[in-house]
């Protein structure tokens, strides 16, 4: 889902940088006030792990491949503010050193994978947490959050491409449909892995899931 340079109109790139910057400001401010000593090594390790996980491209449908994003697990364990910072670091290194994603499109890529791909799964998971207290409900919340987050991120990528009429010669419905249908399948994989990791954490390290979350107060954050 890493959009390279040249796929988006510069006006779209500027809008996406602007929107993402708002979340960057909030996230860095919040993290600078609430990040705990215990969260620092966990944040660094999870970020490194999902950077490595993104190197594995597994086959999906129609000859395409996909890789884990990791945003949902980062969001559930650390909170969405720290999750966004982690995804920003991963995407920045990928863009600058490996050419995976563009420089002009960096704001759009962070928006899709770091804002939508992190905040939406966290929101859905928190809703599940409030409506159900049993293990199955929580795992379903993690699965659904990752799935919805992945599909919405793809929808946003499609919208950005579709509105870039100068760079991408096809309109919104075509771009959105093409991106969203494939990511419906990819999102199932992300959702399954998220639920499995969450289940394993609940059994082996439930204390990590109880760390204070860097999230808006109304979403149970510190």
């Amino acid at each position: 889902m890493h959009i390279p340079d040249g796929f988006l109109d510069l006006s779209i790139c500027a809008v996406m940088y602007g929107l993402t910057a708002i979340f960057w400001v909030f996230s860095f401010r919040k993290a600078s006030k609430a990040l705990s000593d215990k969260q620092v090594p966990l944040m660094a390790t999870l970020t490194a792990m999902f950077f490595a996980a993104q190197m594995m491209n597994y086959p999906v449908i129609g000859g395409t491949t996909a890789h884990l994003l990791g945003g949902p697990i980062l969001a559930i364990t650390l909170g969405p503010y720290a999750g966004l910072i982690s995804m920003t670091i991963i995407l920045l290194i990928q863009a600058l050193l490996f050419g995976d994603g563009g420089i002009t499109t960096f704001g759009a890529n962070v928006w899709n994978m770091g804002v939508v791909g992190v905040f939406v799964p966290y929101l859905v998971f928190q809703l599940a947490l409030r409506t159900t207290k049993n293990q199955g409900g929580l795992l379903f919340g993690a699965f659904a959050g990752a799935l919805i987050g992945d599909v919405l991120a793809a929808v946003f990528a499609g919208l950005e491409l579709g509105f870039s009429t100068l760079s991408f010669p096809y309109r919104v419905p075509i771009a959105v449909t093409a991106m969203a249908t494939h990511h419906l399948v990819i999102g199932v994989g992300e959702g399954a892995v998220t639920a499995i990791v969450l289940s394993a954490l609940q059994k082996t390290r439930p204390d990590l899931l109880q760390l204070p979350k860097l999230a808006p107060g109304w979403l149970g954050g510190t």
Partner: protein
Amino acid sequence: MTGVKHMLLLCIFLSFIFVVVGVIWFYNSMETLDQVAEHFGATASPLWNPPIPEYEIPGFQGNQVMNIGVGILFTLIVFASTSAVAKCLRLLKHRV
């Protein structure tokens, strides 16, 4: 603290496994976006040449040992970068 260390070591170990598996077996990348772009005839126009395009050092393409080394090295660089950013944020917290 020992529990946290075990958890961190497990994650680092898993990262190395991901890199090895990603380099040896799951290296072929054709993301949906690539396919959509190819289908619709959109072309990328990179602003600059990255030093390690496609996660392979120029001149060593296809060298799996080198690629695993690159993967592990940059996983550690991501770890160090995130630690540095998080520690800077912690320092800011103490100043505020």
